[in-house]
């Protein structure tokens, strides 16, 4: 089975993030594999181990994204492809990424493409579905279970906390939700072997794309941090009084009831 994973390098939202002039400071941020993409990598490795084949991890990014690709190789992926847009594109959006990936996959015979449900930076959840639409293959988002028997695929999909069971067929694109699996740590031998695994680097030129073909459709007006959390308030008195005060606060002060 030809399995592909769409992976994004993103900043770690659990670490400190500095924003200045509407841009996130790369210098001070920590970069990681988008956590939802880690589920995709783990699932791809498990599916390969169960059904045979090869796992290729693909990212659209810059030179620095190689680190995250190497980590995926250290976890157990077989090959990696970096589509480096550093020299060609100033900026991009979901349209840009999907367009580039479409050009990349046009020549490929992918049986299964896995992506994260969303990237934790921009959280649009669009790249996977857009790519599947462009390729004309079915897609299922926010999956929490994936079973493949011959050409029949049975999927459990998270629907706002409920489970929907979907049956579909290959080729297929899925986006992975928390609960699908527990991503492994890359092992020491895995890390050492990762440097010998193939990592192909492409530019949009190699995909017969021009800058204009992939020009973004959206415009970012501003990026800012959420307001700092204010200190909480502890209610006092016995439980009955506290409940009464809470209800009155929610009604009168916060006007949410």
């Amino acid at each position, binding site marked *: 089975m030809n399995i592909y994973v769409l992976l994004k390098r993103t900043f770690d939202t659990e670490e400190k993030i500095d924003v200045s002039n509407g841009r996130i400071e790369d210098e001070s941020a920590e970069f990681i594999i988008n956590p939802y993409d880690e589920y995709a990598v783990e699932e791809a490795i498990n599916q390969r181990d169960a059904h045979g084949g090869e796992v290729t991890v693909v990212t659209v990014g810059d030179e620095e994204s190689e680190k995250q690709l190497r980590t995926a190789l250290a976890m157990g992926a077989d090959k990696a492809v970096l589509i480096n847009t550093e020299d060609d594109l100033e900026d991009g959006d979901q349209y840009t990424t999907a367009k580039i990936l479409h050009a990349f996959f046009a020549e490929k015979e992918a049986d299964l493409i896995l992506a994260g449900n969303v990237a934790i930076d921009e959280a649009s959840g669009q790249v996977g579905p857009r790519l599947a639409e462009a390729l004309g293959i079915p897609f299922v988002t926010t999956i929490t279970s994936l079973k493949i028997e011959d050409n029949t695929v049975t999927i459990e999909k998270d629907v706002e906390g409920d489970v929907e069971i979907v049956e579909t067929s290959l080729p297929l694109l899925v986006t992975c939700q928390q609960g699908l699996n527990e991503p492994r740590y*890359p092992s020491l031998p895995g890390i050492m072997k990762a440097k010998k695994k193939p990592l192909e680097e492409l530019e949009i030129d190699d995909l017969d794309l021009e800058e204009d073909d992939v020009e973004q459709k959206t415009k970012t007006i501003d990026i800012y941090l959420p307001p700092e959390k204010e200190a909480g308030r502890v209610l006092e008195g016995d439980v009955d009084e506290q409940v009464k005060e809470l209800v009155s606060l929610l009604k009168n002060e916060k006007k949410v009831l």
Partner: protein
Amino acid sequence: MDFELSKEQLMVKKMVKEFADEVIQPRAIEIDKEAKFPVDIFEQMGELGLLGIPFPEEYGGAGADTLSYALAVEEIGRVCGSTGLSYAAAVSLGASPIYYFGTEEQKQNYLVPLAKGEALASFGLTEPNAGSDAGGTQTTAVEDGDDYVINGEKCFITNAGYAKFLIVTAITGKNEKGQNAISSIIVPADTKGITISSDYDKMGVRGSDTAEIVLNDVRVPKENLLGEAHKGFNQFLHTLDGGRISIAALGLGIAQGSLDRALSYAKERKQFGKPISSFQAIQFKLADMAMEVELARNMVHKAAWLKDNNKPFGKEAAYAKLYATETAFRNANQAIQIHGGYGYMREYEVERYLRDAKLLEIGEGTSEIQRMVIARQLGC
């Protein structure tokens, strides 16, 4: 000159950091309080290949370098001194001597399971009357037919209660100057005549197993001799040189952990209407702590780099061990001071750092011995 870590080294550091934060950190208080060796954590570390980091693939290792190993010890030490010490001892003292001095057959038999994390080994050097003066070893191994018969007593041996085999130093004769000649012998821990008891009630590193070993007419075949006969003294000096880098890395981890906790507490704790991190008295402490952590890290990395590049590293390993472990003690102490009364409580974890750090100024060569090693290198 290049101060950057390689991609692999960065990946090792990141992986071990995540493992330490997610798996070890939540257990650190319990490991210390109950003084219980975390067997399951060592199994997981074995599966991740951490116990074989610096050994070649043909012996079940990962084929990474000493620097990667030091990064791993630091990250584990940052969250749990007990786990860090048992880890450092397992690799540097349990497995390394077999890698350095063992025959091919011994490496296949003993090093492979250690590197794969399937077994632990211990290094039995210290005796009740032979601490810093390891030449004062009294344990004897007498040749009898095809066997050695070993008698003696070892103390403060890390991991021995969980070890599958022990490397024991013993007197095997006299050298040309008429002094006792020492050899190292591999002894399976279940050999008849061995009693291992882990009854020490320790101040710190309480979850790291420490045992006493009594050897009473213990018989092992002569082929269990590690390397050459009568070379035990040089062997353990070489082993301890390498071990010092790992203890230094462990000290560095505790020093970094102390700084991290002190800094985050100082930013949150408010007195006189301000976070205490805005007071110069606290700022100066934090500045000193951060500076010393970085200095210790540079020395640890340099010693590891020298070893990886097959250059002499004895003096630098002693610098690193001495400075990083004393920094760990100072930083843990300041971290408690910054935490005030809370720092004295187990829940805030910095008091454990101080208790753990104290051991590092004693084990694998006291601070005083490190100063002697350095002075000797200066030609004194």
